[in-house]
């Protein structure tokens, strides 16, 4: 979301700043008059001044002119129309470089050394012609950008850019905040937490209530409601059906046993009854698993957590699983790279790991090896225990690797019919791992087979240094 935030922010800010800069430039250009208008007023003011000074000269001589120049801090001089130096004042002119100054019938300004000299032709009241000279020191000419522009833009433009930045920031927040919240909620929802909702702002102000984001939040929540109720209904149905099947199954079990008591143990009836019993047992198991799954799905968190030593748990599991493995001429090997203690509920974890292990034994090729590897890995948020259970089975198509944790999901229905599983075990395992804030993933091994990787957060301070390999091989 940083991406969108910065993109919108930068683009808007640049756009706003450009608008300010360009409009300031335009204003500056239009505010000041065109050069000819400027010159007209300058010339008329020069002429007025020149006439006044000439009148003063005629009345009081050079003295009055000098007094005026001193009081106004100006450098002025007066020459006759022929160039006679009547009243020197401009030093350079006194020095004889008077050649350039000739009576002209229009005002001339020119650069002379360090000064800029205006020569103004004047006709006095007595009808004599003079040239009035006004020298000004060279104004430091600004180079580069128009100095007027800078002077005009100085306080306003930075303020405008800052205000523009702040408002853009607020605007972008207004856009991205709800998006960030929505995205987080969508991700939660995708992870199966169907209770996720996006908080609708409590402010009842009309300003916020009506916008499209609020509508989107509202729709999102509506969608989540619907999703939750649908999934809930499905789970409830599964649970209720399983629940209701228990009583007839209990009766079936007893009736079957009574029938076996009465049947002749050597007759064919007995073998049929044995078959019925096996199927009944499978049915009972399936219902048990379904009910376990649905009760776990109703759980949001596990209580009564305790420290669980995974190494010990796996050692407990191996003899039983090894019995199943031996029937398929398979072996189980356990490589423990570390002592992994995690905080959890041992029954749930046991069931999860056992289901994964049994699944591996069920699908591995005959006379192959099922490997269990336990190790500890450091992560940003403390260490994690990593348990990998690998088989040498047919593998799983890449596109279906994530689906195998859904209840009743079978990769190959024809092939797995004889394997004896229901497709609920891995779903139970996944739920248990989720309840422990862990992760469960499957991937295909090089050389055939599947690895299920289980990752659980370690208790802080648990010993996660390698302790050498310990291998148990009970089925070998």
């Amino acid at each position: 979301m940083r991406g969108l935030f910065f993109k919108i922010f930068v683009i808007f800010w640049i756009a706003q700043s450009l608008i300010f800069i360009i409009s300031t430039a335009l204003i500056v250009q239009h505010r000041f008059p065109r050069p000819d208008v400027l010159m007209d007023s300058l010339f008329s003011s020069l002429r007025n001044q020149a006439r006044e000074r000439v009148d003063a000269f005629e009345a009081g001589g050079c003295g009055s002119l000098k007094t005026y120049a001193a009081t106004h801090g100006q450098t002025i001089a007066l020459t006759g129309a022929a160039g006679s130096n009547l009243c020197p004042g401009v030093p350079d002119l006194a020095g004889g470089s008077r050649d350039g100054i000739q009576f002209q019938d229009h005002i001339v300004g020119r650069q002379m050394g360090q000064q800029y000299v205006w020569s103004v032709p004047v006709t006095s009241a007595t009808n004599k012609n003079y040239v009035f000279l006004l020298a000004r020191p060279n104004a430091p000419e600004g180079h580069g950008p128009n100095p007027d522009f800078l002077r005009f833009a100085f306080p306003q433009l930075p303020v405008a850019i800052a205000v523009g930045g702040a408002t853009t920031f607020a605007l972008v927040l207004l856009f991205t905040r709800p998006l960030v919240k929505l995205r987080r909620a969508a991700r939660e929802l995708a992870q199966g937490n169907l209770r996720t909702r996006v908080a609708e702002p409590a402010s009842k102000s009309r300003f916020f209530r009506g916008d499209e984001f609020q509508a989107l939040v509202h729709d999102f929540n509506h969608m989540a409601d619907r999703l939750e109720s649908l999934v809930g209904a499905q789970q409830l149905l599964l649970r209720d059906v399983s629940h209701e099947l228990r009583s007839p199954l209990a009766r079936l079990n007893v009736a079957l046993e009574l029938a076996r008591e009465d049947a002749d143990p050597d007759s064919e009836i007995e073998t049929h009854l044995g078959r019925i019993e096996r199927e009944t047992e499978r049915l009972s198991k399936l219902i048990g698993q379904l009910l376990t799954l649905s009760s776990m799905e109703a759980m949001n968190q596990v209580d009564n957590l305790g420290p669980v030593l995974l190494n010990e748990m796996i050692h407990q599991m191996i003899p039983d699983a090894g019995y199943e493995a031996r029937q398929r001429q398979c072996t189980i090997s356990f490589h423990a790279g570390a002592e992994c203690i995690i905080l959890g509920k041992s029954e749930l974890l046991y069931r999860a790991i056992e289901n994964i292990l049994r699944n591996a034994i069920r699908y591995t090729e005959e006379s192959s090896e099922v490997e269990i590897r336990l190790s500890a890995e450091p992560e940003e948020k403390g260490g994690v225990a990593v348990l990998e259970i690998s088989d040498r089975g047919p593998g799983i198509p890449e596109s279906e690797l994530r689906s195998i944790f859904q209840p009743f999901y079978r990769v190959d229905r024809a092939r797995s019919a004889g394997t004896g599983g229901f497709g609920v075990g891995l779903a139970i395992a996944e739920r248990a791992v989720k309840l422990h804030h862990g992760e469960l993933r499957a991937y295909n091994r090089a050389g055939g087979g599947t690895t299920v990787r289980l990752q659980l957060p370690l208790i802080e301070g648990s010993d996660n240094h390698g302790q050498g390999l310990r291998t148990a091989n009970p089925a070998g």
Partner: protein
Amino acid sequence: MEDVLLIDDDVELCSMLRDYLEKYGFRVSAIHRGDMGLKAALERRYSLVLLDVMLPGIDGFEILRKLRADSALNVLMLTARGDDVDRIVGLEIGADDYLPKPFNPRELLARMRAILRRTAAAGTPNGHTLLRVDDLELDAAARTVIQNGRNVELTGVEFALLEVLMHSPGKVIAREELAEEILGRKFNPLDRSLDMHLSRLRKKLAEGSSHEDRVKTIRGAGYQLTIHRNLAEAKE
């Protein structure tokens, strides 16, 4: 003939179970309501009560709680399969054992026999009936436990557990061994029955003693009865 009380609202199941159990020498009285079941259990002395959880009237847990208030009657809970909470609550209240429904009747028979065997074994004097460890005194023949002169009321499983532990105080007894001896079945890590029974036993022993914990759990190994003063095991 052992008298067994079956409290379950499934009338048909009750009648079939009665047929089945009678073949194995049990006399079964079936009651289909919770409140009436409790009354029956308190009125007559049954050797075993098979108790369902979901019952009209009052539920199985409530019956068990009321029974346990003043009786060490053997109770086997028929819990709902897939519902771990039921099982744990049942054991916490003090059921001797549990069986998830639907069950295999042979399994039920085995569990009933295991419970009754425990009671019977405790009743027959077999050499040394009086065990003494610290302030604890267990009389196997009279089925009584006395702690600091105070009588401790124990259920059948708890009594059997304490007896095994008191036979070898200070020694760690493996869970597997205890499971086979006490519950009559193989140890299953998913089955928390032993832990439950032991925690109840621990609580009862802690009531009359200043020692913090008489029965210690040794992680990954088993259980141990701790000795505080010098060991005094009397044989008679």
